[in-house]
């Protein structure tokens, strides 16, 4: 039985927020950090509380810590040592594993992410911009009481209008495929696979292999917690549109190229079910828009290219051990949209997202290392994820096509990692435990 009253809501709930703000914090001394935490706990809703008050609520708060942040709160060395290696190292140290090279290297990250001073994140989601302003002001006023807690940087989030469905700055519809957790009572949409054991995402529960092992100690600290990889990805919208123009003579052909990069039309309709032209009705139907596999229907990638984004990030029936590789995604877009046809404006815009999982090395890092950045994934030889891979102009994209395939050489980078971190998102009881350390 999942302890809904102890699991932070962000793990299980997608709140109806179209704006938000991330505040990245540093604790100068443990007592101040604990004081800040003690006062904010009452704002952090459990999954149960958030579900009960979803309609009435306009603002939501989540709190998580880096490994150096747990130390800065005064957690014992023995407890700190019980966390897994990759979390202790932190995301910047894992740059080789993650493929954060060139322009993506942690040396170039902004907002105070490359050093040990990043200790915590407060995620403030809000129903609209006015509510966000209230949240931000309240947090600022609250922080004034703990001068030993400083804001390293912050980031405002804004969904892209119209708000009928989640989209990124490139215009792709998002969030069509997501795993559901056993015990939540939520049925996965057709094609999304069977519900997954809670232990794949939340510490303290059986996972797909059996009882949980190697949990951080003490038990109160790890129970109902999860790891959370944060990635801020700048989206180069102008470069993306230029690329489409350069590789498609007509608007239809440009849409086709965009679809081949993603594996879905920008409407969200999957190429697996709509290989020749877009099908917005299919895209809008959750009973159909994720209901497909690859092994039998499209082994060579004539519909969905082997190297396309969605075929890498979820190879479905063309990979083994899939139940142990799933991840929960949360987050939002930031920056103003670039109007259609507008010239390059130099403004930073993109996606600032979280990947939640029980094992960063087995789930998040595997996806980065193998699915996204292994040039030889599916024996492609010289390709990386065309949307979020570490692209430097030397990798290709093969689009299988009859009679002959089309090969786009020297793919440009459409995204750049601007910052990132590994957080531990504790359960509510664990937050209280941390706040009362002595």
């Amino acid at each position, binding site marked *: 039985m999942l302890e809904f009253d102890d699991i932070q809501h962000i793990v299980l709930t997608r709140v109806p927020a179209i704006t938000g703000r991330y505040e990245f914090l540093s604790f100068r001394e443990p007592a101040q950090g604990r004081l800040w935490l003690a006062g904010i706990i009452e704002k952090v809703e459990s999954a149960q509380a958030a579900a009960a008050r979803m309609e009435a609520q306009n603002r939501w708060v989540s709190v998580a810590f880096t490994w150096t942040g747990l130390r800065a709160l005064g957690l014992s060395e023995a407890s700190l040592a019980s966390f897994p290696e990759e979390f202790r190292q932190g995301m910047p140290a894992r740059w080789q594993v993650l493929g954060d090279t060139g322009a993506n290297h942690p040396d170039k990250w902004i907002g105070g992410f490359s050093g040990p001073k990043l200790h915590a994140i407060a995620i403030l989601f809000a129903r609209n911009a006015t509510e966000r302003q209230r949240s931000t002001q309240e947090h600022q006023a609250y922080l004034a009481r703990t001068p030993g807690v400083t804001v390293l940087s912050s980031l405002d989030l804004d969904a892209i209008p119209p708000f009928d469905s989640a989209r990124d700055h490139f215009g792709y519809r998002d969030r069509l495929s997501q795993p559901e957790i056993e015990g939540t009572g939520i049925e996965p949409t057709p094609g999304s696979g069977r519900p997954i054991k809670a232990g794949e995402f939340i510490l303290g529960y059986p996972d797909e*292999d059996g009882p949980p092992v190697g949990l951080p100690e003490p038990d109160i600290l790890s129970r109902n917690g999860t790891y959370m990889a944060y990635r801020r990805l700048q989206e180069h919208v102008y470069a993306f549109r230029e690329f489409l123009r350069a590789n498609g003579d007509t608007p239809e052909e440009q849409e086709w190229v965009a679809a081949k990069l993603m594996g879905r039309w920008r409407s969200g309709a999957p190429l697996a079910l709509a290989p020749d032209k877009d099908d917005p009705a299919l895209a809008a139907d959750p009973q159909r828009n994720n209901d497909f596999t690859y092994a039998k229907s499209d082994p060579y990638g004539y519909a969905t290219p082997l190297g396309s984004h969605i075929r890498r990030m979820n190879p479905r029936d063309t990979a083994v051990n899939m139940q142990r590789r799933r991840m929960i995604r949360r987050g939002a877009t930031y920056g103003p949209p670039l109007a259609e046809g507008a010239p390059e404006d130099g403004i930073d815009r993109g996606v600032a997202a979280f990947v939640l999982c029980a094992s960063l*090395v087995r789930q998040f890092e595997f996806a980065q290392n193998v699915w996204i950045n292994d040039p030889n994934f599916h*024996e492609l030889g010289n390709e990386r994820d065309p949307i979020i891979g570490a692209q430097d102009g030397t990798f290709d994209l093969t689009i299988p096509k009859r009679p002959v395939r089309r090969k786009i050489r020297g793919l440009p980078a459409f995204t750049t990692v601007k910052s990132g971190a590994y957080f531990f998102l504790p359960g509510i009881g664990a937050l209280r435990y941390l706040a009362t350390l002595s």
Partner: protein
Amino acid sequence: MSQDQFGESTRRAFLGTAAVATAATAVTLAASPTAETALAAAAVSEAPGTGSPPANQIKVAQLAATSNQPIKPEPTTGDWTKPAAMAIPKEGYFKLEQGRYGPIYPRTPANYGFTIIAKIKPGREQAIREYGKTIEKAVGETPDVLAPLRLHYLRWVIFDVGSGPHFMYQGIFDTDFDKYLEDAVALFLKTGITTVFVNLEGWPDDWKTNLPAVIQFFRDHQRPSFLEYGEYPYVTADEVKKALRVKGALSAMLDQMQ
């Protein structure tokens, strides 16, 4: 792996790089961009008058030289008509590239592979030997049972050079071991290959539930090659099968045209 160990292996890798890169250049078809970068890094780290620069200096040199360069894998394609050999440094790699669980071993003309050597527990030799038949049967019944390992060949050997029987598990395959470790371990569990390992010294008692310990066992007992050779280098098992299928289709076509 602790931070200290990481620093140490970084250092070793770097001090060894210049000589090794040269050797690799001589033997393989062409020097890779990676080897050149590493060479530059080694040059940077050799400040005048420092016989052995401290590890932190070397780490800086490494970051400076590599942070702007995506890590390109070692040459993964070559001219299959031209046999190739590759001499590999003692560490098992040319330049330290951190994988999820440890250093990444390069692809060689003989593709990827590992050689796991471990001492057999007293009296367990026969149990391991008999397991050969179990694998034979499993593959006979389900030919694709080992497919996820992307193997070319497996060789299981028991030998005794005076210190008791040892087991060697040598595999040649087409994937970087670090990348698919969990998949391999999951398959070992499923097919019962792990019942061979329980007869080896050092195998963790809690292997059924402790994936990290199992992974550590493999890393601890891996013995990297110092020379690998391919008569038809860098060819994957899939490519071999594809070529044979094409050959088969071609002869069928020629038969049809009689």
